[in-house]
């Protein structure tokens, strides 16, 4: 725990008397961050960005989990769409930013759409592989007892795939934050991305750093929030002995999140 504190202290001390134009003292940056949040328009920007992320991500979760459950359950569909989904995942959503913003405008709608477009793939693909990871014995049993498909979906498939789905959402979150920033830098009257772009191009360096730090805090805060939700939803899963878990999901943190993420930071 001591390292972050040391880094923070070193940053404060080393930039304290800084006269460098590009690296203003950290205390000044934090000061600017505070005044902009309390009195300037930064709080409004934060809300605008946050709303877009939440809406886009919610849409991606609904569509991604829904489609993922269907594709995962139906073998023919899964085989047929495999290569297409892989290609879709490899296509950089940032490429769509100019296309969508120039045609649909600079409002909130196109940004929500972009965030949705980028973050739906990891959720969808993880849901598919989560459904596949459920042991065939469980499937057969549920089928054998003729459990109605609705009940099966709600009580068997969804909980079984949940660990992977949540790992997918975590990846999607980091993509969503990046797309939020890119779409706002590219064209937007509001938002954090617009704030750092404006202050950067008018050489208000302290404001630029302050905005950047705020985006970092936002990204980290959202991922912590997500982890909390995960612990609430997956308490049963983490409490189980590691041995009883499927081998592949045994190490959620390192294999799932990272392996399933194509571009943690894009």
């Amino acid at each position, binding site marked *: 725990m001591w390292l*972050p504190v040391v880094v923070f202290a070193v940053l404060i001390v080393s930039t304290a008397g800084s006269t460098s134009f590009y690296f203003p003292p950290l205390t000044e940056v934090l000061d600017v961050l505070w005044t902009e949040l309390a009195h300037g328009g930064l709080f409004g920007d934060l809300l605008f960005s946050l709303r877009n992320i939440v809406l886009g991500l919610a849409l991606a979760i609904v569509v991604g989990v829904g489609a993922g459950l269907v594709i995962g359950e139906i073998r023919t569909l899964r085989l047929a769409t495999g290569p297409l989904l892989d290609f879709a995942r490899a296509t950089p959503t940032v*490429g769509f930013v100019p296309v969508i913003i120039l045609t649909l405008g600079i409002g909130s709608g196109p940004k929500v759409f972009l965030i949705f477009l980028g973050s739906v793939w990891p959720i969808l693909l993880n849901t598919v592989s989560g459904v596949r990871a459920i042991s065939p014995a469980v499937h057969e049993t549920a089928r054998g007892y003729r459990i109605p498909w609705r009940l099966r979906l709600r009580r068997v498939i969804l909980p079984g795939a949940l660990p992977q789905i949540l790992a997918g959402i975590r990846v999607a979150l980091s993509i969503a934050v990046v797309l939020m920033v890119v779409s706002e830098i590219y064209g937007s009257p509001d938002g954090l991305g617009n704030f750092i772009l404006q202050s950067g191009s008018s050489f208000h360096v302290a404001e630029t750093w302050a905005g950047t730090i705020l985006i*970092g805090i936002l990204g980290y805060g959202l991922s912590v929030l997500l982890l909390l939700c995960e612990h609430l939803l997956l308490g049963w899963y983490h409490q189980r002995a590691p041995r009883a878990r499927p081998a592949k999901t045994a190490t959620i943190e390192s294999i799932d999140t990272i392996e399933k993420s194509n571009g*943690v930071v*894009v």
Partner: protein
Amino acid sequence: MARVRLLQLGALAAVLALWALIAAAGLVSSTALPGPRAVAVAFWQLAGSGAFWQAVGETLRGAVTGLVVAVAVGIPVGLVTGVYAAAEESSRLLMEILRSFPVIALLPVFLLVLGSTPGMKATVVFIACVFPVLLQAQYGAQSVPPSIRETVHGYRIPRLLRFRRVILPGAAPSIMTGLRLAATTSVLVAIGVEVLTTLPGIGHMIMESQQAGASARAYACILTAGAIGHTITLLAQFAEHRLLRWRPPALAGGE
């Protein structure tokens, strides 16, 4: 196998048909979504032009430079922090914060400090790629079984030899996963930087095409970017299979 291929071709045809239908029906304006035929024509024209291949080269150069530096830094740091628990514990929170930091958000700062140069693009790619490589290397080093660790320790095998002969091979599968992720990330980030700045490359070409009203060309560029990303993923998977043939299949995981 043949049936699967047929299914896959069918799905591709269905998607193309749906695309053509939406474009033809005029649900969205043709500037937002040109038809597949227009995009194919635009792609054909692009493939014949030198400027296009130059742009592809620029993007790849930025991506590869950043990736190589990220690998050179990420693997050693990851292995060392993975072996020494104290180093890992003390750096964990910092890593978490840095990892969840959206690198693209630093772009305005980089533009200020480094200016709009190819070096800046490579730097952003480096920062984006170093974390997947580092964390996977760290995880791989941690996954070396304790019995092996103790044996190596007991025989007092020199530190350097231990890293080279025990920890590096032990962590190799995990490192390969990190490399695969970082390779995809590198292209994505390079294109993202190009979209937002005036640096040459595919990303810049997408933006230019769209601003010139040639959205079919923009889509052709986007699909090219997708093809590059997909090819890299496939190549990385292939390399992984070849390099890690000794790995027991139980650990191979995957589909």
